[in-house]
C-alpha cells in the first residue's frame, strides 16, 4: 500500500504537470484537442491524491510503523480518531491533506464549470494546477509522507499529547478548508486578469467560494480559540501567537474583500482594490503556511521539522511578483466608473470599514514580522506578544465595531444630515441608556475596563441598528403584503438572504466583541496550595478539595485526577475533576482543565501541581465572565453565513440567463 501511495503521488505530479502545459497550450493556441485532453486532468489528479491519502490513512489505522511519518505521529495506544487525525498532525501529512483539499476543490470547480465560463476556466484550472504542482513537488521531492524506516520499530512515538483532544479532529481541517478555499477566487481573479474579462463576472462566479472559505476560516479560528481554552490551561483562548495571527490575517483581509465587492457589484467601482484584496487574501494563506513551516518563529503550532521556510518564501515571492505584474499590466482596464454621490453614503462607510479592517490586518502582520525585522536591522531579536496586539488592535477594533453599526443606517448613494439624525437617534439613545445603566455596575479603574465599558455601549448601539433594520423591514413588508410580523420577518430574510444574513453575521460579531471585552477585563484568578479538606474561595464560588486519584489509562498514559466540590452560596452545584496527564517519554505533563460553563461565566479549574505523599495540591482557578458569548456568537455567525450562502432562486434564474447568453456566444464562435 505504501508503494502504491508513493506511486500515486508521482502519477499525480506528472498528470498535474501535463495538465498545466496542456491548458496553457490549449488556451494560447486555441487547440480544442489539447483542451479536451487537459480537461481530464483535474479529476485524475484528485483520484491519485485520494489514493495516496487513503494509503496513508491505512498505514495509520493498521499501525504500519515502517512508515517514518506514522511512527513519528502515532502509536498502538491511540484510539481511532487520533490515528485518523494524526494524518495532519505533522508537516508531511498536513501538506498531503492540503493537497487533497485543493484537488477536491479543483474537481468541484471543474464539475461546476464543465459547460460554462469557458473563457476563464482553462486559466483558472491552470492556476489551481500550478498550486497543486507546488505541493505535489514538495511531497515527491522534499517531504515524502511514505518515507520508510529500514527496521520498523514495534511502536510509534505517538501524537503530541497537546494535540490529543477532540478539537484535533475538527480545528485543523476546518482551517484548511478555509485556507485552501481561497485558491478558487484567487485562480478566477488571475484568470480574469489574464483574459481581460475584468467585469464583475469572476466575483459572481466565486462569491460562494469566497463566502464558504471565509466561513471555514472564521470557524477554524474560533474552534482554535476553543481548543486553546480547554487544552492549554492558561485560562485564555487567544494568545496572539504568530500562527494564530497567520490564520487571523487572511480572515480579516477576506472580510474586507467581502464588503468591498458589494461596491463593485453595485457601482462598478474599486476593481483594482477588490482584485488586490483577493490576491492579498490568498498570499496571506500561503504566508500562514510559510510561518508554520519556516522555523523562523517560535510557536506552539509550528511543526517539529520546520524546514520548508525558504521554499515557501520563494513561492510566496513568485506569487506576489506575478500578481503585482498582472495588476500593473491590466491597470488601464481595471479603471471603473469611480463616481460617488456623497461623502455621506454607505459606499464611503464601506471604504472606512476596509481601512479599519486592513488596519487590524496590518497591525497583526507588523507585529508578526517585526521580530524578524528587528533582528535584521539591529541584530537583536525581540518578542512581540499579546500586550502589543491588545494595545494596538483594541482601539482599532472599537472603530470597527462602531462602523458595523453605522454602515447599515447610512443610505446607499447619498444620505442627508436630517436623515442621519433620524436614523442615529434611537441607536444612540439606546447606547447612552446602556452606558448610564452600566456605569454603576462595572468597574472603571483601569484602561482595560474603560475599553470594555465603551465596547458594551457600542454593542448596544450596533444591536439596536440591526434590530431596527429587521423590525422596519418587516413592518414595511407588513404594510405592503399584510402578513403577520413573523411571516413578514421570515419573508424579508428569505427574499434578501445576502443582506439579512449579513446582519445576522454582524449580530454574532457583536456577541464575540462583548465576550472578548467581558472576559478580558473582569476575569479573576487565584492560585493556592491546599491540603485535602481545605477550601479555596473565588468570586461567588467555594471549592472544597477532596483528594487525588490515579488512573493508569494505558501503557503510556497515567492520569492524576483531583476532586473538588464546588459550592455556590453554600449549596453544592458541581464536582470538578481537573487532572494532569503523564505520557511516557514526554518531559512535560499535560493539564486537563475542568470547566463549568454558563452564559454568565466560566469556572475554570487547573491542577497546577501536587504532592503524591500527602495529597496536597496547587490549584489555579479562573472565573472568566462571558466567555461563552464568543461561542454563541460563533454559531450565530455560522447561521448568518448559511443564510447568505443558501441557494437563491432569483440568483439561479439570473445565472441561467447568463449561461444561455454565454452558450449562444460559444456556439456562434464555434460555428
Amino acid at each position, binding site marked *: 500500500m505504501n508503494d502504491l501511495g508513493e506511486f500515486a503521488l508521482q502519477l499525480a505530479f506528472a498528470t498535474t504537470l501535463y495538465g498545466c502545459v496542456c491548458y496553457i497550450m490549449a488556451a494560447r493556441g486555441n487547440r480544442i484537442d489539447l483542451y479536451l485532453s487537459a480537461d481530464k486532468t483535474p479529476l485524475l489528479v484528485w483520484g491519485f491524491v485520494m489514493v495516496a491519502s487513503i494509503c496513508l490513512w491505512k498505514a495509520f489505522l493498521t499501525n504500519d510503523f515502517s512508515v517514518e511519518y506514522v511512527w513519528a505521529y502515532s502509536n498502538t495506544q491511540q484510539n481511532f480518531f487520533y490515528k485518523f487525525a494524526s494524518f495532519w498532525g505533522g508537516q508531511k501529512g498536513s501538506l498531503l491533506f492540503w493537497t487533497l483539499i485543493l484537488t477536491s476543490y479543483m474537481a468541484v470547480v471543474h464539475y461546476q464549470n464543465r459547460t460554462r465560463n469557458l473563457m476563464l476556466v482553462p486559466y483558472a484550472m491552470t492556476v489551481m494546477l500550478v498550486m497543486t504542482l507546488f505541493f505535489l513537488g514538495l511531497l515527491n521531492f522534499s517531504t515524502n509522507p511514505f518515507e520508510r524506516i529500514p527496521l520498523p520499530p514495534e511502536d510509534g512515538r505517538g501524537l503530541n499529547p497537546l494535540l490529543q483532544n477532540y478539537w484535533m479532529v475538527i480545528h485543523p481541517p476546518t482551517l484548511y478548508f478555509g485556507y485552501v478555499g481561497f485558491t478558487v477566487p484567487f485562480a478566477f481573479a488571475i484568470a480574469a486578469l489574464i483574459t481581460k474579462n475584468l467585469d464583475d463576472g469572476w466575483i459572481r462566479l466565486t462569491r460562494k467560494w469566497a463566502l464558504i472559505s471565509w466561513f471555514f476560516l472564521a470557524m477554524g479560528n474560533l474552534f482554535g480559540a476553543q481548543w486553546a481554552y480547554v487544552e*492549554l490551561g*492558561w*485560562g*485564555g483562548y487567544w*494568545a496572539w*501567537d504568530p500562527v494564530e495571527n497567520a490564520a487571523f490575517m487572511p480572515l480579516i483581509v477576506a472580510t474586507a474583500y467581502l464588503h468591498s465587492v458589494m461596491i463593485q457589484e*453595485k457601482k462598478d*467601482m474599486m476593481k483594482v482594490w477588490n482584485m488586490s484584496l483577493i490576491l492579498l487574501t490568498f498570499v496571506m494563506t500561503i504566508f500562514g503556511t510559510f510561518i508554520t513551516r519556516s522555523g523562523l*518563529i*517560535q*510557536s*506552539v503550532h509550528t511543526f517539529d521539522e520546520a524546514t520548508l521556510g525558504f521554499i515557501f518564501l520563494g513561492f510566496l515571492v513568485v506569487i506576489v511578483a506575478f500578481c503585482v505584474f498582472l495588476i500593473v499590466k491590466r491597470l488601464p482596464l481595471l479603471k471603473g466608473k*469611480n463616481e*460617488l*454621490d*456623497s*461623502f455621506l453614503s454607505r459606499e*464611503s462607510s464601506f*471604504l*472606512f470599514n476596509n481601512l*479599519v479592517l486592513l*488596519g487590524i490586518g*496590518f*497591525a497583526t502582520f*507588523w*507585529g508578526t514580522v*517585526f521580530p524578524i525585522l*528587528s533582528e535584521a536591522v*539591529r541584530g*537583536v*531579536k*525581540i*518578542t*512581540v*506578544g*499579546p*500586550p*502589543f496586539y*491588545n*494595545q*494596538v488592535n483594541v*482601539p*482599532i477594533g472599537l472603530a470597527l465595531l462602531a462602523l458595523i453599526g453605522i454602515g447599515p443606517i447610512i*443610505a*446607499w448613494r*447619498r*444620505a442627508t444630515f436630517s436623515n442621519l439624525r*433620524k436614523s442615529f437617534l434611537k441607536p444612540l439613545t439606546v447606547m447612552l441608556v446602556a452606558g448610564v445603566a452600566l456605569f454603576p455596575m462595572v468597574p472603571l479603574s*483601569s*484602561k*482595560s475596563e474603560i*475599553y470594555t465599558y465603551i465596547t458594551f455601549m457600542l454593542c448596544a448601539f450596533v444591536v439596536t441598528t440591526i434590530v431596527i433594520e429587521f423590525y*422596519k*423591514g418587516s413592518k*414595511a413588508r407588513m*404594510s*405592503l403584503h399584510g402578513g403577520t410580523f413573523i411571516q413578514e420577518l421570515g419573508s424579508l430574510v428569505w427574499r434578501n438572504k445576502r443582506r439579512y444574513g449579513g446582519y445576522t453575521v454582524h449580530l454574532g460579531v457583536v456577541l464575540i466583541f462583548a465576550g472578548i471585552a467581558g472576559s478580558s477585563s473582569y476575569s479573576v484568578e487565584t492560585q493556592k496550595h491546599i491540603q485535602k479538606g481545605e477550601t479555596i474561595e473565588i468570586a461567588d464560588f467555594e471549592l472544597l478539595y477532596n483528594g487525588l486519584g490515579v488512573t493508569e489509562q494505558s501503557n503510556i498514559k497515567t492520569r492524576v485526577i483531583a476532586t473538588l466540590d464546588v459550592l455556590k452560596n453554600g449549596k453544592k452545584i458541581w464536582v470538578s475533576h481537573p487532572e494532569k496527564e503523564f505520557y511516557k517519554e514526554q518531559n*512535560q505533563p499535560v493539564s486537563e482543565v475542568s470547566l463549568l460553563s454558563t452564559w454568565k461565566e466560566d469556572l475554570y479549574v487547573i491542577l*497546577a501541581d501536587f504532592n503524591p505523599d500527602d495529597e496536597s495540591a496547587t490549584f489555579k482557578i479562573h472565573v472568566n465572565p462571558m466567555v461563552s458569548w464568543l461561542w454563541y456568537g460563533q454559531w450565530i455567525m455560522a447561521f448568518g453565513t448559511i443564510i447568505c450562502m443558501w441557494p437563491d432562486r*432569483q440568483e439561479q434564474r439570473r445565472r441561467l440567463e447568463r449561461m444561455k447568453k454565454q452558450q449562444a456566444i460559444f456556439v456562434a464562435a464555434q460555428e
Partner: protein
Amino acid sequence: MKHFRFILAGIFIVALCLASNPAWSATVLGDIENAVMCKCDDKCGKVLINCNCDTSEKTRTEILKQLESGLTKEQIIQTFVDKYGETVLSAPTKEGFNLMAWVTPFAMILGGGLGIRKLLQVWIKPKGEATAEKPASESSEISKEDSLGGYSNRLKNELDRLES
C-alpha cells in the same frame, strides 16, 4: 470635510495615547508576568502569565522572592532583560527603533484615511452635476424617506437594486 485632517490627526493621537499605557492586571506580580515571556526549554513562546510549565512556576517563585526582597517592578523586569536579553520582554520597548512597531500601524491607518479622503474628493461628483444626471425618481428618493412611508420606499428601492 473641512476639518477631516484634524479629526484624523485627533483620532491618531487619541489612539496612540490609549495604546501608550498597558492595560495590565492590578497586581504587581501580574504586571511582571504579563511583561515577560516564559523561557522554558520547550521554547513554548508564551507570555509568563499564560504558561503552566514547570519553568514558569519556578520563574513565578523567583519573582515573588525578588518582590519580597524589595525590588520594584521595573528592577525585576530589568533583571530578566539582563539575564535573557530584550527577547524576554513580551512587547517591544517604546523607544528607539522599537518605537516604529507601535507607531507604524496607526501611521498606516492615518495615511490610509487621508488617501480615502483624497479618493472621495476625486470620486464625488459636484452637486449640480449629480442632481442634473439623476433621474427625477431618484432625486426625490431622499426627500421621500423623510416622509412617513419613506422607509418602505427606501427598502423597496434598495431591494430592487440588489435583486436587479
